[in-house]
Every structure is written in C-alpha cells, then in structure tokens.
C-alpha cells in the first residue's frame, strides 16, 4: 500500500506521466463520444471505454487525494510555502470549476432539450401514416394475388396426383409466383415448384397460417424476405371433389416489384429506427449525460491536478526563498539555493543567493576584525595585568570601562566586577575608596587634560598612599571619549624614604654623639676624683651630685646611641629553616614568671611549616613584641597576652602568621599609620624604636607586619613570614608589604 502511495506521489510530482495520462483520457473520451453515437466500430468498445475512463478518473482522484493530503499536512505543520500553495490551489480550482460547471449545466440542458426535439408528434404520426400507406398500397396487390391463387387452386382441385407437379410448374410460371407448394392440411408437402433452384426444402407456412386456412379457407399476407425486401404469402384450401375428406392447401409465395419492395422496405426501416429511437430516448439521454459527465470530470480533475502541480511549481522558488530567509535569520549564510527556473522568481532566488553570499563574506570579515579586536584587547589586558600600576579607564559618563588586576590589588576591591559601574557607585564596594573616588571625580569633572594628585586611603590596617595621574582620552574626531587614571601604591616608598631618613639620623647620632660622650664621662669622673676630696662638704655635695648626674645622663645617652646604632646596623642574616613555635615557647618561658602577673596564652596550629629565618633576629622580634604588650597592659590587673601561630594565605602566597594580642588600651587612631616608625610611642619609657626594629626584622625576612585594634579592645600585631622553601614552593612569590 505504501509502495502504491509512493508511486502515486512520484507520478503526481512529475509532469509527463500525468500529461500522457490526460492525453490518453482525452483520446478515450473522444472514442467514447463516438461510441455513444452508436457507431458500429466503437459500439463494442463502449463499455470498455467507460471503464477505462472511470479507472482514469480514479487514478486522477488518487493523485489529487495524495496532493491534497500532503497539502493539508504541510498546512497544519506550517511548512514554508504551504499557505501560499493552498491559496493558489484554491484560486485555480475555483477558476477551473466555475466556468466548467456553468458549461456543464447548460450543456445538460441543451442535451435534454436537443434529444427531446428529435421526437416530434407530427413526425411520429407521419411515420405511422407512411406505414399504413405502404400496407394499403400492398393490400390491393395481395387481394389480386389471393384471387389468382384461388383460381390456381380451383384448377388444381381435380388434377390427378401424377400431373400435379407439372401443373404446379405451369401455374407458377403463369402466375409469376416465386414458389408454389401443394400440401396436406397437416402441412405435409405433396408437390412444390420454385424459382430458386438451390432450395432443397420449400418454405412451409406457419402453423398460424395453416389453422387460419383450415378455418377460413384462405390466407394472404406480407412477409419479410431474406435480409431485406418483402414477399406476399398466399395459402388457399383446395376443395377436392375426388377426395373430399382429404383437404389440400396451395401455398404460394409472390415477389413484390423491386421498386415497391424497396420503398416499403425503406418505410419499414425508417419506422423501425424511429420507433427504436423513441424507445431509446431516455437511455440515450443517460448515455450522453454519462459521456458528458465523464468529459467534465476528467477535465475538471485534470484541471485540479494541474492546479496542484502549477501551484507547487510556482511556489517552489518562494518556498526556497523562505527557507533561505529562515536560514539567514538563524545565522546560516552558507545555505545554497538551487535556481529552478529562469523567470523573475528564478532571478530573485539567484539575487537572494548572491546577497547571502555577500552577507556571509561581510560577516566573515566582521568576525575576523572582531577576533583581531579581541586579540588586541587580550593583549592590552595582558599588558595592563603585568603593569605594577593600577589602571582604570572611564567613559564620558564616568562609567568604569577597564580596570586591570593591579588596580584590584591596590584598591583591595574586585575591579572586574566593577566594570560597567558608575564611579559614584564604586563606593558601595568599600568605604575606604571614598577619598579616592572624591579625588577622581573632582579632577575628572574639572576636565583637566593631565593631572596628578596623591590620595591617602584610610583602612583598618593603616593608610595607603596612592599617587594618581589622569588624562582625557580623545576619540578619532578629537572629541572627549573618556578618561584614563593610573595610580601607584607609594606607601612603601614613602615609608622607605622615612626609614632612610631615620637611618641617616641614627647613623649621624651614633657617630656625632657617641664620640664626645666618653670624654664627657671621663672628664666628669676626673673632676670628681680630683676635686671632691679638696672641697668643702657643701661644695663637695654639689660636685658629687652634678658629676653623678653627668655620668648617669652620659650613660643614658650611650644607651640611646647604642640603640640607634642597633637600628641603623644592617647585620648579615644567618638564615636557616626553623620552627617558629619552638622559638615562641623559648622566648615566652623568660616572661612566664614575670612579676606583673600577666596571663600568657599560646595557640599554635598543627602542621605549621618551618620558616626561613635568622633565629637571633626573630628572637629579638619576639622580645620586642612581648615587651611592647607587657608595657601596654601594665595598668591592668587582668592583663592577658595571647600569642598565636597559624597558617595563612595572602595573595596566593603561603605564610606563617604570628599574632600577638593584648587587652591593653589599643593603638590611638592617629598613631596607627606611624606605629612602626622610630619615636612613635605612647610610653614614657624607652626610645620608641621597638616596633621600628620589629618592622626592620620582618622586612629583612621578606615578611609583612601590621597592627590593628581588636573589636573587644586591645591591640593586635600581626607578623607574616614566608614559609621555608623546603616546605613549600612559594619562596619566589613577591610580597606586598602592608604596613
């Protein structure tokens, strides 16, 4: 079944098989119409022709059905072009059906009336009359012949049997009869004479004639003869005087004159045909109607099929275009459309193909330049990423467009997330950015071509000093297109400058002050030794007190100079891998029995890796920190110092973090920036170099140190030291010093 359907589909899609079938149907229809007109040669074919045409119709219906179902299915599936096809088919079918139906309607009417008009009552009457006239004209002749035959019968009445044959022959010649037969009343032939020498058996009268003769003594009437023509049959009873019981019959056949015979014959045949036609009037109408209907159906169905075919052919390029357009809309420019015709639609398809081709080329070009732009962008990003300065670009509306990773590090904000954000809104990313944003806004709004300004960012871990420089970006048309801001973290630089200054001071102090101290001390001692014993007790007391003060103060100054020289000294580090927790324990043991009653807490994480450090310097660092904490908690009775050692990660580097936390008064806000500079102290005692030395030691170890106040009160100093290279692979990572 499916094979039949697919074969039908194939046939319905191609033009020539259906054209051939249509021609065949037209031929068979013309034969059918000839056959319907009762022609002899096609009359026999009539039924076959009807059947052939009916089968042709079924095939056409099948083709149309396949097309129709396909169209409906495509329509429901919203296949491209199906709606247009349906509309075209509808229009074509209407165009075909309407005129054909009108013609059919009127043809049927003409057919009915035409056939009816053949049969006129007057013609029918004339036919009857002609028949009657023929009969009556022949009646005279029949009567004559009856009389003549009676005479013959009389002459034969008493003829002996032996001579009957001769008499018959004579009588036949005399009477111009065709055949004369003498028979018994039972129909047995006694003798016969005929004109036809080939006839063996003479023709015998009908039983009806015989019985009529037996009753009425005679019969005379017309009879058809052979294929055409007429003859007159006469039968007369012979009353024999010799044998009265045995009645005999003389049966004579007379020809009719050719002229009269042919006339009568033509009347008979015309009448017969007319009668037959009248009888066949209805069947004839049906037959013509059937033929007409067949013609109509074949033409109509062929037209409908042609409508499907031509609609599909017409729509094919449109469908192609629609498919192509959809492909282009979906971004597929490589779809090739075949050119199916060389008309305007075909050239439209060709133009469309060329257009998509050009679009495809343009798209490729665009993609290429886009890729290039992307490459350059990536290149720029890489360059920007490797810069040690933070870079931010902003557009005309002060929206951030680009920010490199260094900007994120410096500002301590994920600037990737801030791309596309207005500068004003950047404050939401961190309160510490307020000053930075203010400086940028001010300078950008002032629209200076080039500017630079130092900004200090305040944060919990200390201030950060940024050196910002800005410029206006110009577009190709020399219009303002945006801004670029470059900034560097100069905190360390500033601190280093200060430290260098302090170092210089220290060295000068050590050099300039240390030298005169010893002569001063020696001179004072000499004065005392030489003059104390020689003086009066009052003077001696003054001298004693003064020299004592001098010596003491010089001693104190020596201490101070020693401390300065210690600070200024840059010793060679004895680096080794060491366990910091062991060092902490060792140093802390010295303070455990301290007279101040401070409670020490030690919290050491498990698996803290070794650090690469100089044990002596780290020990000094610990002493300085612990001493600092003890001094700041001296006034408290519940003094508590917590030292913790833990693993830490900062900027991807693995570190060991040492925290010294006390519950003292904490660090005053105005000191938190300069805490690690020399002579920064709240204490009355000491040179103020403890934390400066701590910082120097930490920096010698490539570590970082910062101080912060605890939420619950008290200060916390955090020291981060890089892990030993023997423990981890992060030794070469650079460090960001945060304080």
């Amino acid at each position, binding site marked *: 079944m499916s094979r039949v359907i697919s074969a039908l589909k194939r046939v319905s899609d191609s033009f020539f098989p259906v054209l051939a079938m249509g021609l065949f149907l037209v031929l068979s229809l013309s034969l059918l119409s000839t*056959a*319907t007109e*009762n022609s002899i040669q096609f*009359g*026999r074919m*009539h*039924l076959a022709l*009807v059947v052939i045409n*009916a089968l042709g119709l079924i095939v056409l219906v099948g083709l149309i059905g396949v097309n129709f179902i396909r169209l409906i299915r495509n329509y429901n599936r919203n296949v491209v072009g199906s709606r247009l096809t349906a509309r075209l088919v509808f229009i074509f079918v209407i165009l075909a059906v309407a005129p054909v139906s009108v013609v059919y*309607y009127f043809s*049927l*009417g003409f057919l*009915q009336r035409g056939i009816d008009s053949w049969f006129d009552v007057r013609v029918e009457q004339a036919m009857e009359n002609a*028949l009657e006239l*023929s*009969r009556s004209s022949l009646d005279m002749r029949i009567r004559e012949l009856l009389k003549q035959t009676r005479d013959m019968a009389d002459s034969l009445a008493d003829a002996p049997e032996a001579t009957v044959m001769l008499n018959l022959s004579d009588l036949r010649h005399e009477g111009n009869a065709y055949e004369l037969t003498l028979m018994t009343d039972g129909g047995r032939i006694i003798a016969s004479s005929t004109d036809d020498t080939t006839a063996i058996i003479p023709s015998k009268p*009908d*039983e*009806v*004639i015989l019985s009529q003769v037996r009753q009425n003594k005679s019969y005379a*009437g*017309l*009879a*058809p003869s*052979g*294929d055409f023509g*007429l003859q007159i049959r006469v039968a007369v009873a012979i009353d024999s005087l010799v044998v009265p019981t045995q009645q005999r019959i003389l049966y004579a056949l007379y020809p009719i004159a050719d002229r009269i015979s042919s006339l*009568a014959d033509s*009347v*008979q045949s015309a*009448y*017969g*045909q007319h*009668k*037959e036609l*009248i*009888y*066949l009037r*209805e*069947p*004839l*109408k*049906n*037959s013509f*109607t*059937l033929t007409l*209907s067949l013609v109509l159906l074949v033409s109509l169905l062929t037209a409908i099929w042609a409508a499907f075919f031509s609609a599909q052919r017409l729509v094919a390029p449109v469908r192609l275009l629609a498919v192509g357009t959809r492909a282009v809309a979906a971004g597929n420019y490589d779809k090739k459309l075949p050119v199916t015709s060389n008309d305007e639609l075909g050239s439209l398809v060709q133009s469309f193909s060329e257009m998509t081709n050009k679009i495809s080329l343009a798209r490729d070009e665009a993609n290429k330049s886009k890729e290039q732009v992307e490459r350059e962008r990536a290149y720029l990003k890489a360059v920007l990423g490797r810069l040690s300065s933070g870079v931010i670009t902003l557009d005309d509306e002060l929206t951030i467009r680009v920010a490199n990773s260094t900007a994120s590090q410096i500002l301590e904000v994920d600037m990737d997330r801030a791309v596309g954000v207005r500068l004003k809104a950047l404050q939401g990313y961190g309160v510490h950015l307020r000053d930075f944003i203010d400086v940028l806004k001010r300078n950008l709004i002032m629209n200076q071509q080039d500017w630079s300004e130092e900004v200090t960012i305040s944060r919990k871990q200390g201030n950060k000093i940024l050196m910002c420089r800005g410029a206006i970006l110009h577009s190709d048309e020399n219009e303002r297109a945006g801004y670029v801001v470059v900034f560097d973290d100069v905190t360390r630089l500033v601190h280093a400058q200060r430290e260098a200054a302090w170092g210089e001071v220290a060295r000068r102090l050590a050099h300039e002050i240390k030298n005169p101290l010893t002569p001063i001390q020696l001179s004072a001692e000499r004065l005392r030794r030489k003059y104390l014993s020689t003086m009066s007790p009052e003077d001696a007391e003054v001298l004693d007190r003064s020299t004592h003060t001098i010596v003491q103060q010089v001693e104190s100054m020596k201490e101070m100079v020693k401390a300065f020289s210690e600070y200024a000294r840059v010793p060679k580090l004895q680096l080794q891998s060491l366990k910091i927790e062991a060092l902490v324990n060792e140093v802390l043991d010295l303070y455990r029995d301290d007279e101040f009653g401070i409670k020490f807490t030690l919290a050491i994480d498990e698996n803290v890796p070794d650090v690469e450090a100089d044990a002596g310097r780290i020990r000094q660092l610990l002493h300085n920190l612990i001493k600092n904490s003890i001094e700041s908690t001296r006034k408290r009775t519940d003094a508590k110092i917590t030292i913790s050692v833990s693993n830490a990660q900062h900027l991807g580097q693995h570190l060991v973090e040492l925290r010294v936390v006390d519950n003292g008064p904490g660090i005053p806000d105005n000191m938190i920036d300069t805490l690690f500079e020399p002579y920064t102290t709240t204490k009355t005692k000491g040179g103020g170099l403890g934390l400066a030395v701590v910082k120097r030691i930490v920096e010698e170890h490539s570590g970082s140190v910062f101080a912060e106040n605890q939420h619950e009160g008290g200060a916390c100093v955090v020291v981060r030291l890089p892990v030993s290279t023997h423990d981890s692979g992060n030794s070469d990572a650079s460090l960001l010093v945060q304080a």
Partner: protein
Amino acid sequence: MTGLVRVLCKVCLLWVSPLLVFSGNTMADEFVINSAELVLTEKVYQLNARIEFDFSKDVLAAIENGVPMVIETEIEFLKPRNYIWDEEVASLEQRYQLQYHALTEQYIVRNLNSGAQYTYFSLTAALQKIGNIDHLPLIDEKLLSDRDKENYYARVRTHLGFENLPVPLKLNALISRSWWLGSEWIELDL
C-alpha cells in the same frame, strides 16, 4: 431544474450501480432449460433441448419497439482437471436474433450462425422456434480422444446477448437486473 436534479441523480446511479451488478454477477433464472440431451447419431454428437424463455417487461418493451435481441446458447465440452478449472475441449455458440417487423406485424427469427430466417405471427411461436433445438450437430466423436471418453462432459446454457444491445441501452441494461437474463449451466453426460 428538478429535471436536471433527476438527471444528476441518475448519473450518480449510473456510476454506482455497475459496481453492485458486477459484484453480484449472477443471472436471473428467467430462462429455463427444461430438457437437454446429447445424442450420438452417425458418430456426431447432437443436441436436443427444450428451452423456455420468460422475458422481463423491459425486454418485451424493447422487442415491441423494434430493438433486435440476440439469444445465445452456449455448449461446451470439458475435461475435468484436479485443482484448476476444467479444460475446454470444444465449444459452440448458437445465436438467434429476434426482431419485430412493424410493416408485416411479424417476428423475424434469424439464425446468426446459418443465416436462415423465419417469420412468426406471435412472439411465443418465435421463441418456440428458438427454444426447440433438435438434432443440432455439435462435434465429431473422433475429436474427443477415445481413451478416456467417459471423462468428458458437456454443459449448456442460454442467455440474452448483452453485447448486441444498442449502446444507450447497454448502460441501462448494466444497472438493471431485468436485462441480465439467462439460465444456469446444465451439465450433460456424453
């Protein structure tokens, strides 16, 4: 307009009814073979039969209106075979044409095989002529192979000749059972 509708209905009927008729394909038993026998006379098989014709009204009307009718009598000699249809050894068709002659008001019976023509005053007489088959020579005994003669059989049937109807009437005849006249096959022993 109503006439047109009627015609259209008829057209539809013309289309549908042949299918009904063809699906049945049986003839009405209006023709009855009352007796039939084969007689071997001088080594020739001859048929004697008496057939009774009972024409339907439509056919009678057609005859009265001068439409010639052909009555065909088929005789077949067959040899039975297993599983497939029987083999036809010989067949013969006796065809008579019956026509009304208006001028003489008589019925003409024409033997289409021999060309002999007979006229009758009544239809009954004419049909009697057609229905009485006497000594119709069929086949020479020699033509049937001697060896298994008893295996042969003959059959006879008669029916109205459909093919010879006038074309317009044929379509009507197709859809009306009153034109499908004929008898069943009657089997005859040799």
